[in-house]
């Protein structure tokens, strides 16, 4: 327990450093002040046929984003389909089936990394790095680009452009993701993550007669970008629980720090770019409060005994619920990892979420339902919480009967409509699709566990994909044509259904002039604003999903002594 508290303290210290310095660096990258990589950057723009000095309107920015996403999606899809005839395939795996390739390509494109396959028995090394790891870089960079475009919308006055999509995406990859991921990759490998192109290795131990064929691959460096880009898709089926992906408690800690670093730092970048750090601190405060509550709640739940193990006769479980958990992490670190991963849209796991205690699973599921804003994914966390903030000032404005303003920009009908659209896309998509899946026999067949936990598995799957998270209650059988297609719709809505309104909002805001502060201005760097923002986040997530959640984890928690 003392060790765990110390872990939290060190994590906070590391993130504080990331907030201040990575945040400032991100601001330098996206305002063009960082130039150390321009030797590599300029030739790329020449090849792309892009003039980096020429900015785009929000419409052009959105078209570039959609066209690029379409092509990148097709690229990944083709590699997966053709892996059987492509190199770097030591296990001689055949092409990935069409529906699964489609779901997987959409999944990595949208930064979701939902996996309806087991990596070590499905994907060639080439597929892992060319189709999937490639997307782990660009999908993260695109997320940050959209967030920065929205921040520019707030920061600019009377302008028609919000930046250049190609420049923002390339700079994000080159200046931010590549160097940090490379350094982290070296640490992962030093600790024991594998990184080789050689195929599986056969070992035999004469002492116990065990023969094993151990799968390997280029894992450690993929692990680094998987966490840093809040992607979450691992090389192996067991994801971050696999000792070759996450070999020690140190890499486990590094994973948590990496996946939180950019989303947290972006609140500093935001404050810097709009000219008031306090505005960024207000967003960060809301994030930290929710993250803190969910972490305490979920770790406490996992420190309790597993009810099924207790019912079997082992009441003494002093460390907590160990079903589905690795000894080198234990329940507390696993619960912290789970919360960090579900609230950042990362979705990697270092333990079986499916076997968490009812209230632990509740913590993970509801963490996603809040819309991935605490602190959310790379970029997606910032742009989604800014939509919540616009809704919050609108509600504040209604209360006092004044046209609301945020960062000096008047929030009028168009802005409120766009923000509301962006906020509501996810809950509507998730609830409708979860309803459809539960109503149809083909949907119910996906549940692996019986009783309320089976419903939780379906709800978790749809929530996870709709929020571009990618974690799962892993017993869920998603590799069917039905779930591959439904999941892809879910993920595309959760990504582009929010990004496009965000870019439209960015365009609308950039065109506005700034109105000077007056005595009647509602201060958005005040504790009162933080409370209002928390209210919006909790009401949109909490109340919308309460009926659904009460049929899953809540029923499970309340069925004392009953097993299904």
């Amino acid at each position: 327990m003392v060790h765990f508290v110390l872990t939290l303290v060190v994590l906070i210290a590391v993130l504080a450093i990331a907030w201040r310095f990575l945040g400032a660096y991100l601001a330098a990258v996206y305002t063009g002040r960082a130039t150390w990589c321009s030797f590599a950057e300029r030739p790329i723009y020449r090849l792309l046929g892009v003039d980096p000095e020429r900015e785009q309107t929000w419409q052009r920015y959105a078209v570039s984003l959609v066209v690029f996403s379409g092509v990148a999606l097709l690229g990944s899809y083709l590699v997966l389909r053709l892996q059987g005839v492509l190199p770097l395939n030591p296990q001689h795996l055949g092409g990935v089936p069409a529906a699964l390739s489609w779901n997987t390509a959409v999944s990595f494109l949208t930064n979701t990394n939902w996996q309806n396959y087991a990596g070590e028995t499905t994907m060639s090394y080439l597929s892992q790095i060319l189709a999937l790891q490639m997307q782990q870089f660009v999908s993260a960079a695109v997320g940050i680009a959209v967030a920065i475009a929205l921040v520019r919308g707030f920061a600019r006055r009377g302008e028609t452009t919000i930046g250049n999509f190609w420049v923002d995406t390339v700079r994000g990859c080159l200046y931010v993701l590549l160097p940090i991921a490379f350094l982290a990759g070296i640490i992962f490998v030093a600790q024991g993550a594998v990184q080789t192109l050689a195929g599986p290795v056969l070992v035999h131990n004469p002492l116990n007669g065990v023969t094993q064929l151990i799968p390997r691959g280029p894992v450690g460096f993929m692990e680094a970008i998987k966490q840093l880009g809040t992607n979450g898709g691992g090389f192996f089926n067991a994801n971050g629980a696999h000792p070759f992906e996450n070999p020690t408690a140190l890499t486990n800690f590094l994973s948590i720090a990496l996946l939180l670093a950019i989303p947290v730092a972006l609140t500093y970048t935001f404050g810097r770019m709009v000219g008031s750090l306090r505005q960024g601190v207000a967003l960060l405060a809301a994030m930290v409060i929710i993250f803190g509550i969910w972490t305490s709640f979920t770790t406490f739940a996992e420190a309790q005994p597993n009810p099924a193990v207790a019912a079997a006769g082992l009441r003494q479980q002093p460390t907590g619920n160990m079903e589905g958990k690795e000894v080198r992490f234990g329940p507390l670190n696993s619960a912290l990892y789970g919360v960090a991963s579900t609230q950042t849209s990362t979705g990697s796991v270092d333990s079986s979420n499916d076997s968490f205690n009812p209230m632990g699973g509740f913590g993970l599921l509801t963490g996603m339902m809040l819309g991935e804003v605490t602190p959310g994914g790379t970029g997606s966390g910032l742009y989604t919480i800014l939509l919540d903030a616009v809704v919050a000032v609108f509600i504040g404005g209604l209360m006092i009967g004044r046209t609301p303003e945020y960062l000096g920009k008047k929030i009028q009908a168009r802005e409120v409509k766009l923000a509301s659209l962006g906020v509501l896309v996810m809950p509507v998509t998730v609830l409708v699709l979860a309803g459809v899946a539960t109503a149809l026999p083909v949907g119910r067949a996906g549940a692996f566990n019986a009783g309320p936990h089976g419903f939780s598995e379906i709800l978790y799957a749809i929530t996870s994909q709709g929020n571009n998270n990618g974690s799962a209650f892993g017993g869920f059988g998603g590799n069917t044509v039905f779930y591959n297609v439904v999941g892809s719709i879910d993920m595309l809505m959760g990504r582009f259904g929010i990004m496009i309104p965000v870019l439209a909002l960015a365009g609308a805001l950039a065109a506005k002039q700034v109105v000077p502060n007056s005595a009647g201005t509602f201060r958005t760097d005040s504790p009162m604003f933080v409370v209002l923002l928390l209210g919006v986040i909790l009401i949109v997530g909490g109340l919308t999903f309460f009926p659904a959640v009460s049929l899953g984890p809540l029923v499970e928690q309340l069925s004392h002594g009953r097993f299904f």
Partner: protein
Amino acid sequence: MLAQLRGAVVLTLIAMVVFGLGYSLVGTGVSQVLFPSQANGSIGPDGSTLIGQRWTGPGWFHGRPDSDNPLVANGQPGSSGPSNLGPRSKVLVAQTRGLIRYWQQHGVKPTADLVTTSGSGLDPDITPADALAQIPMVARATGLSAARLRRLIQSQTQGPELGFLGPAYVDVLQLNLALSRLR
């Protein structure tokens, strides 16, 4: 529009070459030079210290009761993963009952780690407490004294990492290799 399409195609190809292939290949090169043992799976003559093995018989310390430790299936590696049984699963209750009975038959008072499966299905470690609990079984089968086995476990205990990250643990393969030298 055509200009956008050109940009999209070229950027996809660049991303595949630089962030797909280049990043991985350079990473593999650096790893193979700096940390060849780790990069290839920490594999010794008896297996990998990071991949759990199934130990049977009372003469050895057992790891987590993971179901499919031998990874061979039709000449292909099997896939890793947990049981995914929920906290109110009848199957989990029945499975755990069987494991508790197994340990009691061997004179061991089981700990939670010894009757629950891991997140990877390959957990290479147990806690020192899990190892200590197995001393009556191992002592009877090997004839080694309990005090000797306790010292052995102590000498094989590692972690927490940096003194505070994660629990202390014992690598079961290393523990049994050390035990085989005593036997």
